[in-house]
């Protein structure tokens, strides 16, 4: 299953990529393959913006605005005027989304 078409904020800067393959290793959605010593995005619509690849890229070659893909978290954020939060960090009351 895939989410909305062409919406994920994922960007890959191939010129910085060393082909180490960490992104492909940590991605739970099989977004990356390594081809000719470079990471390649197979299908951006697979991306759920968890941010694992960008955080673990030691060469700063990936950008994604990571966050929780959770409607009640986003609505919470709108109401409180803060960041989207489902309260999973124990900061606020839990909205029970994850």
């Amino acid at each position, binding site marked *: *299953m895939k*989410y909305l078409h062409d919406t994920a904020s994922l960007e890959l800067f191939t010129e910085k990529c060393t082909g180490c393959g960490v992104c492909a*290793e940590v991605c739970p*959605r099989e977004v990356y393959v390594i081809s000719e010593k470079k990471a390649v995005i197979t299908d951006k619509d697979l991306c759920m913006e968890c941010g694992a690849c960008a955080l673990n890229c030691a060469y700063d070659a990936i950008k994604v605005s990571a966050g*929780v893909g*959770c*409607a009640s978290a*986003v609505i919470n954020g709108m109401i409180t005027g803060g960041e989207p939060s489902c309260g999973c*960090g124990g900061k606020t009351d*839990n909205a029970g989304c994850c």
Partner: protein
Amino acid sequence: MDSKDGGYCGPECCPPNNEDNAPIVAACRTKVTTEWSRSDHVGQILCRLSNSFRMKYSVPPGLYALGAPDKQSDVFASANYKLSFDILRRSLKGINAWILVLDTKGINVWCAAGEGTFGTDELVKRIDENLQNVVAHKRIIVPQLGAPGVAAHVVRKKTGFNVYFGPVRAEDIRAYVEAGYEATKAMRAVEFDFIDRLVLTPMEIIPSLKLFVVYALSILIIFGLQPVGLVFNEAWGYGLPFLALGLLTVLSGALFTPVFLNLIPFRSFAIKGWLAGMIALAVAAPYLGVFEMGKPLAWFAFLFFPLASSYIALQFTGASVFTGISGVKKELKFAIPVYVAGAFVSLALLVVFKLGRLGMI
């Protein structure tokens, strides 16, 4: 005591409690087994049913000894949500290992990683506090779903420990270790099959039922309200079909949409939920006499219930494992104005109906 002989932390003994051994002794005293007790099983079920129970279901952070680990044994990192910890230790049957539990405020690995509590800083801190002098190697196996919070290269720089991202599912850990810390492609991908989705539905249905109670009271009052006060027959005659439709809507948004997620067309959860609600309503309406209730009420039904189903289904983005925040924001930008407008028009239709019943129009 010579650490090379292994097994010094067996079931019967812990090493002498001197300064050198202090960390090992501390860990030795928090021994755990791979077995689940009855209360562990009950706890798992309650976690699926009650949010307040789940939020308190935690274990103290720190280092735990599973079986009889020694200085060469693997270290597995986990969250201090008790269900995460229990599933990990159960999947390590026959393996002597250390479990390093991070303080994630009782939240599971993936969500805590997203929020940053299962994160680089916490892992570095736990390694410094709990692993020094306990193991002679520099390997720590972190669940792959912890990767959104843990930057492996930063952990290595700060502690010297190499983070090995283990498989997504704990049940694959044995195969992963036996393959020399190599995960297959299948072990790296999250699945979201029928059963995965089904076990999540109680936590969708239960919060929706709270909304249903508010809805039910409002509906009974609106239908029952007469110049002479609340009239039971009036409340019940129209109210009962509308209570049934309300329940059906909860089911279509919180059960049918999640369970048939892959079969319902469109990628938007709001549209999927609306469609499911519309189909459920179209099937049930003739049996509940919706078309005989007059135009304002029939219009109300076909406007309100599919939209309510859409709203409830949208909440399932939180439990789904393929929805990103950009997509959710995009959906909400469109959906919220529609919901608000729909709510106003629905209310207006009820007022029109009510005025008609009271002979005022």
